[in-house]
């Protein structure tokens, strides 16, 4: 039996094509994935991301615990509401999950983890919490709706009385509480917008109100092409427990400079780096897909995420290739039974409605 979010009925009523997504029955699209993608880049759209798990960390040791638990430095979080993206590593330095931490006060940090890894994450955190005065509380009756696109904030303000005053000056990558709701200026599309946590019972009404204001529902299909264009990693594809975050484009989130120790740090310091995560732009006709083999001047690599980019109207990918391969090099990718030409590029590929290539 697949799990359903509080918005399942709304999706069904709106004609969603529902698929099994890591044990959750989720909307893949509501008609056309490509149109939904453009809708977000050009106007705005809403995503049900209630399958993701919200965890609250409370207790006097919250900051110390997180400082030990994650690779990024929670000491960057000093202003209430500020968010931090981080990887959570195992002792070998592999990525257990990637997550967002919101700092609300010294005894309340809110974390959002991936759906497919939530149980594993909670078990790991519980185990690491020994000796710390903290409590880890999964918020299982919170739904989450992401509204993304250049007009997203305006639409939320129209749909949610009182939210404009509260969030107009909210800076990117920060959050604020609004009654029983939690509004964050974060997302996974490369566009401006909000991610809004709301009690499950109230979610269908809020979703319907956004729809009345003209916000179109967007499925997980477009969510994937949007995040790929924006150059954002997807857990399980671009990194996992066997992958070094420094070879997965996550070096900017791993704090090796400070004195602080964290789980996985020693392993990372002792390991030579062989790979980088690079962008690929397909020059021939076809579509790049994950697991396709890449041949470069410095050896073999592999595509971790590949698809058709609706914004660029050509196929793009993230690929793990040898570190020495420079941007601009032409490489070969085995696409089905053919060797096709692709160019190594710096990503992101597109953000804020525009191609960056």
């Amino acid at each position, binding site marked *: 039996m697949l799990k359903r979010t509080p918005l399942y009925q709304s999706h069904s009523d709106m004609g969603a094509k529902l698929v099994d997504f890591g044990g959750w029955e989720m909307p893949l699209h509501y008609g056309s*994935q490509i149109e939904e993608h453009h809708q977000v880049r050009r106007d705005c759209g809403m995503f049900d991301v209630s399958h993701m798990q919200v965890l609250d960390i409370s207790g006097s040791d919250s900051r110390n615990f997180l400082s030990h638990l994650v690779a990024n430095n929670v000491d960057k979080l000093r202003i209430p509401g500020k968010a931090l993206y981080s990887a959570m590593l195992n002792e070998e330095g592999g990525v257990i999950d990637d997550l967002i931490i919101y700092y609300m006060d010294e005894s309340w940090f809110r974390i959002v983890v991936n759906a497919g890894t939530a149980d594993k994450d909670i078990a790991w955190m519980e185990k690491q919490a020994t000796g710390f005065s903290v409590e880890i509380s999964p918020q299982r009756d919170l739904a989450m709706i992401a509204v993304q696109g250049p007009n997203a904030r305006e639409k939320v303000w129209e749909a949610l009385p009182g939210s404009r005053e509260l969030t107009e000056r909210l800076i990117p990558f920060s959050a604020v509480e609004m009654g029983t709701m939690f509004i964050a200026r974060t997302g996974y599309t490369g566009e401006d917008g909000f991610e809004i946590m709301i009690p499950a019972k109230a979610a269908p009404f809020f979703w319907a109100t956004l729809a009345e204001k003209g916000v179109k529902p967007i499925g997980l*299909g477009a969510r994937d092409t949007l995040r790929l264009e924006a150059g954002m990693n997807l857990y399980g594809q671009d990194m996992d427990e066997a992958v070094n975050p420094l070879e997965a484009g996550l070096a900017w989130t791993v704090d090796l400079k400070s004195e602080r120790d964290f789980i996985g740090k020693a392993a990372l310091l002792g390991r030579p780096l062989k790979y980088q995560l690079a962008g690929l732009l397909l020059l021939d006709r*076809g*579509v790049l897909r994950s697991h396709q083999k890449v041949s470069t001047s410095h050896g073999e690599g592999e595509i971790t995420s590949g698809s*058709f980019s609706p914004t660029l109207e050509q*196929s793009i990918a993230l690929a793990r290739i040898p570190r020495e391969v420079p941007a601009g090099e032409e490489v070969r990718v085995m696409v089905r039974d053919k060797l096709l030409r692709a160019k190594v590029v710096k990503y992101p590929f597109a953000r804020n409605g525009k191609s960056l290539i």
Partner: protein
Amino acid sequence: MNIPGNLKYTASHEWVRLEDDGTVTVGITDHAQSLLGDMVFVETPEVGRKVSKGEECAVVESVKAASDVYSPISGEIVAINGDLDGSPEKINEDAFSAWMFKMRPDNAADLGALLDAAAYQSIVESEAH
């Protein structure tokens, strides 16, 4: 479910239309396009290529996945639909008019082995369960 009664079908979701001049026109069904989603790339076979029944002879790629198209009969490719090159979305818009290729059958009797609309419909329904 849109399954025109005047066409023949394969279990691998191709539709086949018998033309007056003895050739057959081949495309993928509406059910197939709906499973694949937005098409972004179509690779058609070379005109003049000889193919056997069940042989992979074209590829359709959607945003989601790539899928082979199989020859419904043995014969020679005599024409391809060049329109699909720049407009693969035509398959999503109307799968039964967005044909992919035409073939001349080696043996007209092979056509008898294709499915009629009712038989194809029951295959689609059984896949749904």
